[in-house]
C-alpha cells in the first residue's frame, strides 16, 4: 500500500500491553485520515455510553494522508475521544512535526485504551513501545514537558504531544499540545489526565513510500509556489488576527461576553496593532510554506517577557469578549492557557461569563477569595489583572477556579441551582462547548451551522459563515437556501479536516476555493500518493462520510434533535449597537432552518439517518446500529 503503512497501533494503559491491527486498503479509501479516521477508530473502539473519563473512552490518533510527503500544509493529524465537554464526539486537529514523525514510525493511527495507575508517558520508538514513568514531568507546562522528554531521551528528533498542569488537574477544557500547536477543543487534555497519560512521544526513522513521487513533487512545487503569492499574503503578514477589525466593522466581534458585536477599542486589540507593537516573529508548522502564526511578546509592564503565538479565536476570547483593551493582558492570558494546556477559547469565554456574572451580582468578590487573594478579586469587564489571576486559579484548581474549570454550561447550572439565578442566559455554549468568535446573531447561516455542529458550535467544522460574510446571502434574514448551504459548507470543511490539509491553502490550487477549483487537484494529490483513481465525486464523499460518522457517533451516544440548539442569548437577545443591531435568531427561525438542513442531508425530520443512506455511503455496520 502506498502512502499508508496499513497498520494501527493499539496501546492498553491498564495492562501495559500493545498490539497491531492491520487495516485493508478499502478501509483507508473510506476513512482517509484526520478527523474522519480518528472518529471511525473511536466508533470501533469505544464502549457506547461510557463516561468520557472512564478507561472505556479511547484516545484515537489518525495521521494525515500527506504527512511527511512534499504536499504543503499536509503535516497534520486528527485526535478523537468522547468529549467531556459535550458527551458527543470530540475531534480536534493539530499539526507539525508530530504527525510527520508518527508517519516515519510507520503508524497510520494509534488507539490508547484503558487508564494507568501511575502517571506515565508513552514512547513510540518506531515499532517499539515503552511505558515510561512521568512522575518527574508532573507540574511542567506543555512546552517544558516536550523539552524535558527530549532531554530524558537524549534525542532532539523525538516529538511529543503533551498535557500541562490543567490536563493533570482535569480542567474539563484542557487540551493537547505538540510542537507549539494544539489539538485545542473539546477537552482532550482532561481525558488524558483521567488516564494519567502525560504525553505521547514518537521517534520515527523510516521512509514514506508514495505511488508517483515525480508527479507528487511537481504538484507540490506548483502549490507551494502559489502559496507564496497574494492568496496567502494576509495570512503570512498579519495572520488570522486581522479578523478583529473585519469582525468589528461588520458588527460581529463578540464583546463583553457576546452582549454586543462592536468593541469601542477594537483598534487597540487588532492584528494591525499587535503586528506593530508585539510581534517578534512569524512561525510556521512543519511542512507549511505559509507561516501564519504571530509570535507576540509583552515588552513592558508586569508581564514583560511573556511570549506566545496569537490567533484570532484566542484573541477575541481574551480581549474584546472580556472588555479588555490591553494586548499585554491578552497575551498573558493566552500564554497562561497555552503553557497550562487549556483551550484558550473556552477558558476566555468562561472567564467572560464570570465577569458578566460578577457585574450582575451573581458572583461577588467573596467568591474569588483564596490563599493568594485573601480579599478576593474584582472580576469586572476590562480588568486584565483579575482575569489573569482567575486563569491561574482555573489551571491550578484553586478556589472558584474549580467551578470555572468546568466551562460555562456546568458552571452556570451549578450556580443557578445553588443561588436561584439565571446565569444560563449568558452562558455562551451549545452542547456544552463554548461558541466561536463570530457573532451568529449577525450571521444567520452560521447560526444554523453552529447549532448542528457535531462537536458543538465551531468555525472550523463548518464554513457556513462564508456565504454570510461574502454577501452571497442576506446575513440578517432566513430563507430556504440555508439548509443546503449549511450541509454543503460543513462537508466542504470536513474534506480538509479529513486529509487533513490546512484550509489556508484552499485558493492555491487554481485560484478558486470552491469545489470545482479545489477537488480536481486534491484528487490528483491523493492519486499520486496512493496510486488510487479518485475523482471529483470521491472527494465529495470524503466530506459526507466524515460528517456522517461523527453524527452517527453522536446518535449512538444519545443525541436528539433538541441538542441542535444555540445559546439562550443568541436566540432571545438582539444586539443594540453597530451594523448588526436588532438581530438574533429566534427559535422559530432555527427550527425552520434545521428542518431544511436535515432534509438537505437526506435525514428524517428528527435528524436521524436512514439505513439506506448509510448503506449507500458504504457504512452497513453503522446502519445496523443507528440507522432508522
Amino acid at each position, binding site marked *: 500500500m502506498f502512502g499508508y503503512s496499513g497498520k494501527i497501533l493499539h496501546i492498553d494503559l491498564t495492562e501495559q500491553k500493545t498490539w497491531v491491527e492491520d487495516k485493508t486498503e478499502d478501509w483507508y479509501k473510506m476513512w482517509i485520515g484526520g478527523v474522519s479516521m480518528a472518529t471511525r477508530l473511536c466508533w470501533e473502539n469505544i464502549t457506547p455510553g461510557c463516561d468520557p473519563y472512564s478507561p472505556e473512552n479511547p484516545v484515537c490518533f489518525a495521521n494525515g494522508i500527506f504527512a511527511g510527503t512534499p504536499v504543503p500544509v499536509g503535516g497534520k493529524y486528527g485526535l478523537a475521544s468522547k468529549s467531556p465537554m459535550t458527551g458527543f464526539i470530540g475531534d480536534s486537529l493539530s499539526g507539525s512535526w508530530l504527525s510527520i514523525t508518527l508517519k516515519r514510525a510507520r503508524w497510520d493511527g494509534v488507539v490508547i485504551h484503558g487508564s494507568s495507575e501511575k502517571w506515565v508517558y508513552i514512547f513510540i520508538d518506531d515499532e517499539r513501545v515503552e511505558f515510561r514513568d512521568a512522575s518527574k514531568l508532573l507540574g511542567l507546562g506543555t512546552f517544558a514537558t516536550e523539552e524535558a522528554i527530549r532531554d530524558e531521551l537524549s534525542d532532539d528528533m523525538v516529538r511529543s504531544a503533551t498535557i500541562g498542569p490543567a490536563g493533570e488537574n482535569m480542567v474539563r477544557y484542557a487540551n493537547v499540545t505538540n510542537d507549539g500547536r494544539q489539538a485545542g477543543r473539546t477537552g482532550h487534555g482532561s481525558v488524558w489526565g483521567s488516564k494519567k497519560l502525560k504525553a505521547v512521544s514518537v521517534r520515527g526513522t523510516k521512509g514514506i513510500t508514495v505511488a508517483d513521487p515525480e508527479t507528487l513533487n511537481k504538484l507540490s512545487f506548483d502549490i507551494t509556489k502559489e502559496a507564496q503569492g*497574494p*492568496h496567502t*499574503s*494576509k*495570512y503570512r*503578514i*498579519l495572520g*488570522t*488576527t*486581522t*479578523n478583529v*477589525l*473585519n469582525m468589528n*466593522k*461588520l*458588527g460581529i466581534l463578540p464583546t463583553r461576553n457576546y452582549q454586543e458585536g462592536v468593541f469601542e477599542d477594537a483598534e487597540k486589540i487588532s*492584528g*494591525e496593532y499587535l*503586528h506593530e507593537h508585539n510581534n517578534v516573529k512569524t512561525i510556521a508548522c512543519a511542512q507549511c510554506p505559509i507561516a501564519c502564526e504571530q509570535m507576540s511578546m509583552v515588552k513592558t509592564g508586569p508581564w514583560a517577557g511573556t511570549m506566545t503565538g496569537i*490567533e*484570532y*479565536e*484566542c484573541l477575541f476570547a481574551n480581549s474584546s469578549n472580556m472588555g479588555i483593551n490591553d494586548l499585554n493582558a491578552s497575551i498573558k492570558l493566552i500564554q497562561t492557557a497555552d503553557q497550562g494546556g487549556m483551550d484558550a477559547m473556552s477558558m476566555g469565554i468562561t472567564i467572560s461569563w464570570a465577569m458578566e456574572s460578577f457585574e450582575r451580582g451573581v458572583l461577588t468578590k467573596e467568591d474569588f477569595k483564596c490563599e493568594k487573594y485573601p480579599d478576593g478579586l474584582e472580576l469586572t469587564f476590562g480588568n486584565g489583572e483579575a482575569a489573569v489571576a482567575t486563569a491561574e486559579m482555573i489551571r491550578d484548581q484553586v478556589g472558584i477556579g474549580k467551578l470555572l474549570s468546568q466551562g460555562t454550561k456546568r458552571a452556570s447550572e451549578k450556580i443557578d441551582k445553588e443561588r436561584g439565578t439565571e446565569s444560563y442566559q449568558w452562558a455562551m455554549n451549545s452542547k456544552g462547548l463554548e461558541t466561536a*468568535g463570530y457573532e451568529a446573531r449577525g450571521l444567520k447561516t452560521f447560526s444554523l451551522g453552529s447549532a448542528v455542529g457535531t462537536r458543538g458550535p465551531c*468555525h*472550523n467544522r463548518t*464554513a457556513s459563515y*462564508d456565504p454570510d*460574510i*461574502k*454577501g*452571497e446571502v442576506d*446575513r440578517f434574514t432566513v430563507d430556504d437556501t440555508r439548509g443546503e448551504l449549511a450541509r454543503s459548507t460543513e462537508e466542504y470543511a470536513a474534506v480538509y479536516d479529513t486529509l487533513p490539509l*490546512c*484550509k*489556508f491553502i484552499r*485558493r492555491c490550487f487554481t*485560484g*478558486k*476555493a470552491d469545489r470545482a477549483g479545489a477537488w480536481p487537484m486534491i484528487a490528483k494529490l491523493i492519486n499520486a500518493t496512493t496510486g488510487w483513481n479518485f475523482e471529483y465525486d470521491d472527494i465529495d464523499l470524503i466530506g459526507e462520510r466524515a460528517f456522517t460518522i461523527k453524527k452517527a457517533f453522536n446518535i449512538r451516544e444519545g443525541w436528539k434533535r433538541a441538542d441542535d440548539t444555540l445559546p439562550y442569548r443568541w436566540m432571545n437577545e438582539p444586539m443594540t449597537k*453597530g*451594523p448588526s443591531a436588532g438581530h438574533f435568531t429566534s427559535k422559530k427561525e432555527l427550527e425552520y432552518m434545521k428542518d431544511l438542513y436535515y432534509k438537505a442531508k437526506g435525514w428524517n425530520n428528527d435528524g436521524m439517518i436512514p439505513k439506506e443512506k448509510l448503506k449507500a455511503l458504504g457504512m452497513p455496520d453503522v446502519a445496523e446500529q443507528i440507522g432508522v
Partner: protein
Amino acid sequence: MDNIQVLVEFTGISRMLTGRMEYQLPLADGAGMMDVVRAIGCKFPPLVGEVIEKDGESLIPTNLFSVNGKQILHEGQLQYQPKNGDRLILLSLLAGG
C-alpha cells in the same frame, strides 16, 4: 465632475500596503464599484497584485467591500453605485483562527 464623496476604509493587508486607515474618495455621479477599485488602485499602486487584480479592474477573491458595515458586496456585485457619504470598507476576509 465629481459630485459625491465616499470614505474608503482599509483594514489588514490593504492598510499595511497603503499605510492609511482611510481615504476620502471623490466620485462622479453614477460611478460604480469598478470605478472605486480603479481609483484606489491608481492612488495606491501597492494594492495592485495583492488586493486588486493585476488589470486593476476587480478585487482578488476574498477581498471585498462592505457598504457601511451592513451590506456586503460579493464578487459579482461591482455594479453597485455608491451613495454620497457611504463608508466603503475594504475587507480581506480570513477563515479559521
